[in-house]
Each structure stands twice: as structure tokens, then as C-alpha cells.
């Protein structure tokens, strides 16, 4: 409220980075960490209330950890599970930064995956260094095109992207079901909805088979790391990212500054969709080898959660993706060795998101972890 009386700082002082404010640390670190801790505790209470005895709860948590980080194989499963969800979350986070809520990552991932499968089984004889990138690229482009529809509808007509992407999700689901039951996608001789198998020349190479042939971690995670770097570069190093962030934080100021909001909306949606389409491609080309109903594993929806938890920052998304991958991998182990159903994991994931989305709740629950907030006065 009062002026800084020590006189103006010099130019060189001015150019030094400021120490990260306590409030930012709270928002970026403390809230997510407490949310995860609280969700795990409530998960334990849920088990207790549903009649799981205390030793088995202990065993469940121990399995949750050993199944996610306890061994090379557990780590491999964690990162494999993290791969698609991190990619969709990157796209969704990019949308958040630009003020767009891309609920449609699920549909974009689905169609991207279908396109990647189609390319993947179609061109026998192509060398892997052409076939694999081509399949991934087509998957990303189809995802981009699908998302751009919602972007264009918003830019041209003002239709809200949440509504249009939900509708596009429904269409994508039905379209996928239809394609899987009909030639040329359907596997010849089968009557259930399942696609032809991707040729080896389009499969992402496994990374750790030299250690153990059963380790599923594949080159998809390298793509994840590349995309994290790419999205970071895009957001914080390019003029396009500057426009995205300005539009997201203050669309009036973006317009004042001469940025073309309609174009930005379409481009953001397209890039977001490309990442979701890539997620679908990586899932079918890295793990599944074919497509069947539900092959996305809800990656588009979990991506929303990961983007929120990662605070829409590429590095945050990377870490949140690993957490979600760990919960999934550990959850399977928990089901096997402690007999606790994997549904508990969905409960824990949902609680984490609820807590992250409600920072005020976290403040009320853990007042000692936060600074007292100054009321805003004018």
C-alpha cells in the first residue's frame, strides 16, 4: 500500500529475476502435494469404511507403491501408462493457457488413434523410418483437424468449445464403433469390433527389451519428452505462445494489442488436437498394436485432470502424468496382491482433482501450510 521508500532500483537490479513469491509456491507446489496426500488418506478411509481391514489397507498402499516405483518393471509400467495421458494433457494445458477448454481430447485421441492404425496396417513393405513417422503424423493431423472444427465454430459463430467438443466426442465414439465393425478397418474374419493389426514396421520400438523382454516401455515416452520441450518452447519462447498466453489471460488486451483472436483460437485448438491425436497414435502403435472400443482408456478425460494438476505448465504436466501413470500401474498391482479393486484408484484420482480445483478448501483444511492472504482493497 505504501511506496517503496528506498528509492528506485537501478537498471541492472531491474533485470534480475525476482525470487518466486510465496503465493506462487503455494499455488504450484503446496496445493498439489497436499491434495495428493489428502486424497491418499481419504482413499484409506474409504477402504476402511468398505470393510477392508487395517493390515490389508497397509498391503494395498504398499502394493500401490511397489507396483509403480518399486522395480524396473514397475517404473516401465508407470511410464507406459503415463504416455498417452501426458500427451493429451499437454494439449489441454496449451488450451487452458489460451483460455480454451478442450474437453474433446478424448474424441481427438480416438480418431487420431484410428488414423494411425489405418496407416499402420496399410502399407506393407515400407521401412520403419518412413512408416512409423507417417502413421504418427497422420494420427496427429486427424486429431488436429477434428479439434479445429470446434475452434472454427467458436471463431466463426461464437459456439462454446466445451459444448462443441463434447458433441464431437460423441460423434467420434460412434464413428469409431462403426469403423471397427466394417471393412477396411475391421480385421477380416472377425465379427466383433476390432481393427486389423498394425504392421511391425509401424510399431514404436520397445526401449528396455534388452533388460527383460516383458518390459513394455516404448519410444512413445521419448515423444512425450520431446513434446514437453516443444510445448514449453512454443508457450514461452515464440511470438505465437506470447499471443496464446495474452489471449488466455486477457482477451480484451489481446484484441487491443492487435492479435487476431479468431485465428489464435483455431490454431490453439488444432495444436491441442494434434497432441491428443498423437496420444492416440502412440497408444495403438506403442502398446496395443490394434484398435478396439475403449482403446483410449479414457486418456482424453484423464488428460484434463493431469493438465489441471500440472497447473497447465509443461513440466508440471510431465510430473502429474507420471503420478497418474503410477496410480494406474500401482493400482493394478494393488488389485492383484491386496485384492482391493482398482476402482479405488479412480476415487483417489477424482479426489486429487477436486482438491486441486478447490485451493480454498486446501487452505481451510491445512491453514498452517499457507500464508494469510491479504484481502484485496481498492
Amino acid at each position, binding site marked *: 500500500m505504501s*511506496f517503496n521508500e528506498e528509492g528506485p532500483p537501478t537498471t541492472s537490479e531491474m533485470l534480475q529475476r525476482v525470487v518466486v513469491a510465496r503465493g506462487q509456491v503455494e499455488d504450484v507446489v503446496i496445493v498439489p502435494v497436499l491434495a495428493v496426500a489428502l486424497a491418499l488418506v481419504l482413499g484409506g478411509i474409504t477402504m476402511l469404511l468398505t470393510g477392508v481391514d487395517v493390515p490389508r489397507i497397509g498391503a494395498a498402499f504398499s502394493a500401490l507403491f511397489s507396483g509403480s516405483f518399486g522395480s524396473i518393471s514397475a517404473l516401465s509400467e508407470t511410464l507406459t501408462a503415463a504416455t498417452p495421458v501426458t500427451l493429451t494433457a499437454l494439449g489441454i494445458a496449451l488450451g487452458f493457457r489460451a483460455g480454451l477448454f478442450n474437453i474433446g481430447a478424448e474424441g481427438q485421441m480416438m480418431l487420431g488413434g484410428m488414423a494411425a492404425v489405418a496407416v499402420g496396417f496399410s502399407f506393407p513393405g515400407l521401412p520403419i523410418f518412413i512408416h512409423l513417422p507417417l502413421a504418427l503424423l497422420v494420427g496427429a493431423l486427424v486429431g488436429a483437424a477434428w479439434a479445429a472444427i470446434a475452434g472454427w465454430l467458436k471463431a466463426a459463430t461464437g459456439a462454446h468449445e466445451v459444448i462443441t467438443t463434447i458433441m464431437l466426442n460423441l460423434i467420434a465414439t460412434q464413428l469409431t464403433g462403426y469403423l471397427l465393425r466394417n471393412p477396411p478397418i475391421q480385421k477380416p474374419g472377425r465379427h466383433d469390433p476390432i481393427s486389423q493389426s498394425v504392421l511391425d514396421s509401424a510399431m514404436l520400438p520397445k526401449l528396455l527389451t534388452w533388460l527383460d523382454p516383458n518390459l513394455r516401455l516404448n519410444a512413445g515416452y521419448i515423444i512425450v519428452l520431446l513434446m514437453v520441450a516443444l510445448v514449453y518452447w512454443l508457450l514461452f519462447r515464440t*511470438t*505465437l505462445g506470447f499471443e496464446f498466453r495474452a489471449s488466455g489471460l486477457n482477451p480484451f488486451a489481446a484484441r*487491443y494489442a*492487435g492479435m487476431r483472436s479468431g485465428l489464435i483460437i483455431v490454431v490453439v485448438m488444432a495444436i491441442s488436437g494434434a497432441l491428443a491425436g498423437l496420444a492416440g497414435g502412440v497408444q495403438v502403435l506403442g502398446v496395443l498394436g490394434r484398435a478396439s472400443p475403449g482403446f483410449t482408456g479414457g486418456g482424453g478425460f484423464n488428460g484434463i485432470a493431469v493438465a489441471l494438476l500440472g497447473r497447465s505448465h509443461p513440466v508440471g504436466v510431465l510430473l502429474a502424468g507420471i503420478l497418474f501413470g503410477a496410480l494406474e500401474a500401482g493400482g493394478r498391482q494393488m488389485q492383484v496382491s491386496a485384492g482391493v479393486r482398482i476402482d479405488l484408484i479412480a476415487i483417489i484420482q477424482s479426489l486429487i482433482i477436486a482438491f486441486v480445483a478447490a485451493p480454498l478448501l486446501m487452505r481451510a483444511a491445512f491453514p498452517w501450510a499457507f500464508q494469510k492472504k491479504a*484481502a484485496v482493497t481498492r
Partner: protein
Amino acid sequence: MEIELRGITKRFGAVTANSDVNLTIRPGEILGLLGENGAGKSTLMNVLSGLYRPDAGEILIDGKPVNFRDAKDAIHAGIGMVHQHFMLVPVFTVAENVVLGVEPTGRFDHLDLAAARRQVSDISGQHGLSVDPNAIIEEMPVGLQQRVEIIKVLFRSAEVIIFDEPTAVLTPQEVTEFFVIIRSLRDAGKALVFITHKLGEVLEVADRISVLRGGKVVGEGDPKTATDADLAEMMVGRSVRFAVNKRAVNTGAALLEVRDMKVLNERDEITVDGVSFEVRAGEVVGIAGVQGNGQTELVEAITGLRPALTGAVSFLGHDVTGASSRTRHRLGMAHVPEDRQKSGMVTDFTVAENAVLDSYYEKRFSSGVTMRWPAVNAEAAKIVDDFDVRTASIFSLGDHLSGGNQQKLVVGRELSRDIKLMVASQPTRGVDVGSIEYIHDRLIAARDSGVGVLIVSTELDEIMSLADRILVMFRGRIVASFTSETANVKDIGLAMAGVAA
């Protein structure tokens, strides 16, 4: 009823908004409360009207300590507040608005509007307010709406009335009428607090003056002996110069020509109705007018943010009527928008990012694909230096700057390019006295270097001190024009009120 604030301290987290404030409000007296934005005036009055509870100190009414739990307690105690932004239902009548919340009711809870109208007429008559109880609020001029707010607090039997920046929305004539009213209230024995940052007004009407700075009472003044300069120095903490030093006008070629322009607002109403004027190199043209007479839409049409319905804008000889704001920006048009937080800056961006908000695309700051952050940072540091923006670092968030420093950053950004025309809308709204002086000097310096300057302001003082030519806008038209020689407050005020001069 005499009110004493004793040792009032109010903190918000680490910020102390009021620190050990002592203040006495006496019946039959007008207390002028002066202070810049953020000096703690509003917090103090919110404590008095029961909205905030002080962390330390007490409020005494006629010597007895009182404890307000909420605003209702304060109203019951006879403390009323007339807010800067009126709290009236536009489609209701005066009487309906006045009784809202405390409606007189007859048998079976029947709403007794006749009684309400009678009471409103009585109050209006007693204080010479001449307000018709049956008038609809949205059809009344702002000055009359303010009187309805006054009737509202009198109806609730207020003995102490706090006016928060009451003259900000009034024409000069309405201000004069307001002074008559506030004096009559004083003579009727009410205790009055007049919050403002306008020195002239407080000197004219107040009986006592208290000055707040940094949450503390830093001085008291007697309006009979105090001068503008004394008070300003107390407010700002250093001496302030009022008159803008200006060289004689030396105009060149016409830069901006607006021809017969009509512009629609959001509700598709013609808000700018056939406006023509030009701005030449090296002159300051000021557009005066009460807020809401089409100035916002006119500026947006000139800067390319809003399409013109008819008419033409030409800039440097190019027809830019349909051109984008980016095109105009490239040609050398600068724009300080009227609401810096809404559109002039991104408050969650750093100072550096805000420093290139609309010029990031230039070769200096980007390669076309990637940003040249070192160049951006250097530019930001230069603007911060040149325009005296008080910030800890160029990486601080825009949000962490005070209003005056945000505005200096915006003005600095716009003046730091090679520009031909500066369109500045409300360039000093909500800005502290020290920064106003600075911004005015820089605008005049730009004019002296041959830039054409168009200033749109509802502050007549600002227009009078800066402009070489003054145009007055009323209901979308330019109804009068003056040169700096012919300009006088009375004629401009009449034109602002729509009375043909």
C-alpha cells in the same frame, strides 16, 4: 452527533491499510478527506460504515464507544454512505428506490408507496433537492441520481453522511449544485465527510481537511489558509507542480482526419453520430464530455477496435477506415486505452511482457517465430527507467504495480515507439497526483516533438491544461469547440451538459 475514530488500525495480511488513524467528525461541519488512491481512505470509511472491523482502535459516538458488527449496525447508529457508483435500480421510481429494504408497510403487509412518496417529497423539500418521487431512475441525469442516493441515506435517518468521490461523475454545473446541497445539509446540522483527491473542491467546500498518506493521517489543513500546493505536498510527500509547462503550439500537417463518422455500441444504438475533426502534427486536441457520450466508441473506431458504421478515418493520408488495429499500429498510431486493467495490459504478465504487449511482433522483439527476450527485457528496463515506473524488477507481475505505475508503464510503452499520433483515453484516471504530473509532461513532450495527440478525458481540468483545441462531445456529437484562448470552464461545462453555447 459527533464521531471520533481513535487509533484505528486495519491490516490485510502483511499490508497495513490504516495505521493508528485519529479523526473527528463533527455535526454542522464538512470534513474533507484527501488522499491518493491506495492511501487508505476507502478502508477507513468502510471501517466507519461497519463493512470492516478494525484490528485496533475504537469508534466513539458522542463519547461512547460503539462496536459495529456489520453495515446494518452502522446504519442504525445513523451513519450513511453515498457511494461513487450508485446503487439504484434503474427501472424503479425514486420513491421505490429510496424505500428499498425498509419499505413502509400498512395492514396485511401492504406496501405503502403513497407514504413513501410523501416522505421522499418531504425530505427533498427540506434540503432543497427538488427530486420528483415518481421519476424513473434511468431517465434522470447523473446529478439527480446522486441526490436520490442522498435522500436514501437521509430516509434512513443518517446524521453522518460519507460521500465517496461524489464529484467524479458530475459536470461542472452539477458540481456547483452539489456544493449547494452539501452546504445545506451542513447547515441542517449533519456531519459530513467528503472524500476526494481533487484539491480545488475540498478547498472550496470543506470546513476542515485531513490528509491521508500510506494509511496514516499526515496532516490537517484549514481551507481558509491552506493552498493547493501545501495539500498536494502532504498527499504526495513532495512538492508538486500543477501548471503544465507548454511551449506555443506549432502545428504541421493533418495526421488524422475523421469524416462524418457514425459508430454503433454493443446494443446497436448510434453512439457516435456524425463526428468530423482532425488532429495535426504538434498539437493536442482534447475531447471533453461527461462519461458515456460516445467517447469510448469514438476512440475504438479511430484505433480500429470497433467498425465505423459510416464515415471515414484517414491517417497519414491512408484511408484506414477498415484497417485492423495492427495496421494502424504499424503506421505509427499509439493508443492508451481508457481502462488499463481491462485492455491496456495483462495483469498476470510480467512488466517486461507488458512492455511489448502490442509491439512484440516488431523486428526488434521477435525473429518472426521466436521472441527476442533479451531485447524485450532491455526495452522494458529502458521504459521503466525513462518513465519512472516503480517496480522491484521487470519480472514482477503487472498486478503488483500500483495504478499510477501501471499507467506509466502503458503510456511509456506507447510513447517509446516511433509514433506519429497518440490517442490517449483517460490517460490519468485513478492515477496519483505525482504520476499525473509526469504523464502530462511526457504527453506534452511528445507534442513538442511533432506528434499529434488526441486526449479524451472526463476530467475537465486535464483537458484544459493540456489541450490546444478542445472539442466537447454530447450524445455522440461534437457540440462545441474551443481554442486554448477561448476555453473557459463555464462555457465548456454548459456544452458538456448539452446546452448550446
